[in-house]
C-alpha cells in the first residue's frame, strides 16, 4: 500500500468537458477552490473561555453577530449561535484543526476537519447576483447583503453557505462535495445566457 494520495475536488471531468474557448468577457466566472480546507468549530459563545481560546489560535475574531464573516488569515463564517466554519488553505487545515482541538481541551466544544466533505466555488462578475437569484430566496441586493455578510440557504435546493467576499462582486458558495456536481451543472445551465465560465483555482 504505497499509493500516494492526490487531493482532488471531484469536478475535474466536468471541467475537462467544457467548451474549448470560454468567452473573453464572461458575465460570471466560477473558480473551483479545491485548495481550501474547512474546519467546523462548535462551542458555547457565552462564558467558558471557548471564544477566547479559539480566537487565540486563529489570531482573529470569532464572528458573534449572526450571518457575518471574519476575514483575516482565515475566513471564519458564522453558522449558528454555537457553530462556525473556518476556511483556510488546505495545507494548513489539518495542523490548525489540531491546534484548535488542543486549545479547547477541557472545554465543551468540538473541532472537526471537514475538508473532504465540502468545496468552495467563487463566483465573480457583473451577472453574479442575477444568476444566484435564479436559485436562491435570499435578497442579495448590495444594500441588504453586504461585504462581510454570509448566510446559509438553499441554492437550487442544495444547502449552501453563501458569502459576499468583495463588491466586484465576488460571492463564495460553500457546498457539500456530494452536491458539487449537481450545483456545477445547475450553474452551467442557469448561467448559460450570462456566459458562465468555470476554471480551477
Amino acid at each position, binding site marked *: 500500500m504505497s499509493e500516494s494520495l492526490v487531493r482532488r475536488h471531484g469536478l475535474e471531468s466536468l471541467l475537462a468537458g467544457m467548451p474549448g474557448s470560454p468567452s473573453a468577457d464572461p458575465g460570471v466566472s466560477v473558480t473551483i477552490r479545491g485548495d481550501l480546507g474547512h474546519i467546523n468549530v462548535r462551542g458555547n459563545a457565552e462564558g467558558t473561555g471557548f471564544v477566547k481560546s479559539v480566537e487565540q489560535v486563529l489570531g482573529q475574531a470569532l464572528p458573534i453577530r*449572526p*450571518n457575518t464573516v471574519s476575514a483575516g488569515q482565515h475566513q471564519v463564517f458564522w453558522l449558528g*449561535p454555537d457553530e462556525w466554519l473556518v476556511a483556510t488553505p488546505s495545507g494548513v487545515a489539518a495542523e490548525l484543526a489540531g491546534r484548535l482541538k488542543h486549545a479547547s481541551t477541557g472545554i465543551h466544544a468540538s473541532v472537526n476537519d471537514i475538508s473532504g466533505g465540502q468545496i468552495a466555488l467563487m463566483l465573480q462578475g457583473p451577472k453574479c447576483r442575477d444568476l444566484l437569484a435564479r436559485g436562491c*430566496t*435570499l435578497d442579495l441586493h448590495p444594500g441588504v447583503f453586504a461585504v462581510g455578510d454570509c448566510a*446559509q440557504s*438553499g441554492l437550487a435546493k442544495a444547502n449552501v453557505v453563501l458569502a459576499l467576499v468583495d463588491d466586484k462582486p465576488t460571492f463564495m458558495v460553500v457546498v457539500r462535495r456530494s452536491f458539487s456536481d449537481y450545483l456545477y451543472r445547475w450553474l452551467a445551465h442557469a448561467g448559460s445566457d450570462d456566459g458562465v465560465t468555470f476554471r480551477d483555482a
Partner: protein
Amino acid sequence: MLLIECPWCGERAETEFSYGGEAGIARPADPDALGDAEWADYLFNRSNPRGAHRELWNHAQGCRRWFGVERDTVTYRISGSFRLSGGVGKRED
C-alpha cells in the same frame, strides 16, 4: 410563501424551515406513572386551535436552530418568533 423570522437569521423564506408541531408540550416527568390514556394524550392529542397557535419551527437550511413561532391558523399571519430555553416549547422572556 410564508416569510418566517428566525430569531438569529431574520426573515427567511418558508422553504428554509421545517415544521415541528405545537410548542409548549412538556414531556411527563415520570412516564412510568402514566396510564395509557394520559400517555396517548401526551403523544397524540393537540389543541388544534382556530386562531393564534404557538408552534415549533426548525431553520433547517440555515442555522439549524429550533425556535417558536406564533401563527394564526386561519390567516397564516405570523405575529412573532421566540427563542426556546430550558427545553423545547418553554418561552425565553
